């Protein structure tokens, strides 16, 4: 591989000349790898929050990010759609490629966030009607035809398994929904923007077990069409729904492998300690 022979040019703070496309990225057969992350470091001021993380995210798979609080898994997730741009003093070096393109230089920020949707830990419906919540993304993309919007709203709510319970109250405030409904609405809202990737940041940590199960079922369904990366503090959840699992500890990616392998035969002793509940 070319990578081993060429010196790997670190990119400084999202700027500098565009690096030549690495042999890997060129070789990536389109569609199979959604994200390629190589030697990524992230700093909050002087704090080195992510250390030399490299990971490939395969298309139409669920990748789970696990690890104890403060290990950097959420920070890593938020780098993938550049939500960390909003954080002052946050600096990222290394290479993050989305569908083969450098997310800092070759992809427009707004286009990236449209393609890479996000569902947050707390449900975050806007103080608007259910319809307007879901229509928010399409409206940003310039769709204003009422019929077309209605179609997208219905389709998205169906996909997120909310249509039946919400179809009669589309014009009511989304804030009147229960927590679990709000979170599924947020998933519908994300889907309505037509992403190809959905980032989920502990989407069930604020929910009861039944709502959690609904979201998990939903994730498994959505995987047919979308690539999902989910941060979870719940190892059982990672085990139940993910294809690949990444274990983070103190800003380092300790192990990244097939979920089945990780939970049955982890190669790093730290992973084993964590998943058997000895710390974290």
């Amino acid at each position: 591989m070319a990578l081993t022979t060429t010196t790997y040019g670190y990119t400084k703070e999202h700027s500098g000349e565009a690096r030549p496309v690495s042999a890997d990225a060129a070789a990536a057969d389109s569609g199979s790898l959604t994200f390629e992350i190589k030697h990524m470091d992230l700093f909050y001021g002087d704090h080195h929050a992510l250390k030399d993380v490299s990971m490939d995210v395969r298309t139409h798979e669920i990748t789970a990010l696990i690890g104890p609080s403060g290990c950097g898994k959420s920070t890593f997730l938020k780098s993938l759609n550049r939500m960390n741009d909003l954080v002052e003093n946050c600096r990222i070096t290394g290479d993050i490629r989305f569908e083969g393109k450098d997310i800092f230089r070759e992809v427009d920020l707004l286009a990236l966030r449209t393609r890479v949707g996000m569902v947050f830990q707390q449900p975050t419906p806007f103080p608007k009607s259910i319809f307007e919540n879901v229509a928010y993304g399409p409206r940003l993309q310039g769709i204003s035809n009422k019929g077309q919007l209605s179609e997208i709203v219905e389709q998205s709510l169906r996909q997120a398994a909310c249509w039946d319970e919400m179809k009669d109250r589309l014009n009511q405030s989304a804030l009147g929904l229960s927590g679990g409904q709000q979170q599924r609405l947020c998933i519908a809202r994300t889907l309505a923007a037509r992403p190809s990737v959905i980032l989920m940041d502990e989407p069930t940590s604020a929910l009861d077990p039944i709502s959690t199960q609904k979201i998990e079922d939903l994730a498994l369904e959505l995987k047919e069409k979308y690539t999902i990366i989910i941060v979870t503090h719940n190892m059982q959840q990672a085990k139940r729904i993910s294809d690949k699992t990444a274990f983070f500890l103190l800003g380092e990616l300790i192990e990244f492998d097939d979920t089945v392998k990780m939970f049955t035969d982890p190669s790093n002793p730290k992973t084993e300690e964590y998943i058997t509940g000895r710390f974290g």
Partner: protein
Amino acid sequence: MNQLQKAIAKAHRNDRTAKILITACGVCMALVPILIGLFLFYRGTDTFTLFHHSLTEFLFSGEWNPGDTAEGGGKVGAAMFITGSLAVCLLSLILTLPFSMAAAIFMTEIATPKARRLLQPAIELFTGIPSVVYGFVGLTVLIPFLKSIFPMPFSFSLLAAGIVLAIMIFPTITTMSADALAAVPKSWREASYGLGATRWETIAHVVIPAAKGGIATGIILGLARAMGEALAVAMVIGQMKVFPKSLFLPASTLTTAISADMGGAMEGGEYNAGLWTMALLLFLLSFAFIFLIHYINDLSTLKGEKK
């Protein structure tokens, strides 16, 4: 009685005393506006009861010629003062709103924390400037300036009053709006950014709609201040007892009419009663403003921040 028992008894005594004192203060606080209201009601209704004028005449007639005697018999139509007040208030609101909103958005959404620390006290300083200073500056700077650019028969005008008031209510509306914008949860902004929205789209479609209750409160408070301001307005509006027909002509407002004539009107006379009725009207208006604010707040908490 041992020392502990004494201490406990003393603590109970102090607690009771404090409760009585604080309750008394609270009752006084509530009593003062009620008493003022009652007094205004008592004096302000003379126009209708003692001098037999109708409410319609007071509100809608433009004939202002009350008799300065206890016999009365004049005309008590305050419509030109009422429309003058409304015109000045609306004008100041229209003038100040774009700047207030822009300043509030800049402060909360765009300025760095350092710039914010500088801006906040600067804007708050506006409120601390006495109104006579605003009026004085308006008189010496604004009026000659306006006369130099517009062909105005008199120097004093509705426009001058509107501009002075606009500057006076700017800090009220700006700080209230900025507080409301800053209170919009960060999670909503993040969700909006996460859907591919720009900062402006996020401000326009999420932040401002979510803050509209607080912004409306700021606007009403600003209006209330504009409605009640007498001195600065009196110094630049010209105080001519006519309907406000043009931006460039003098006019009068409820407050300027009261302050101009209250010294000369005979106690117990019809003129005096007419002025008290205008005072009562101002009181009722500010009452209405306060109710409106509470209504809007209830409305936005009902459908807004449930959590």
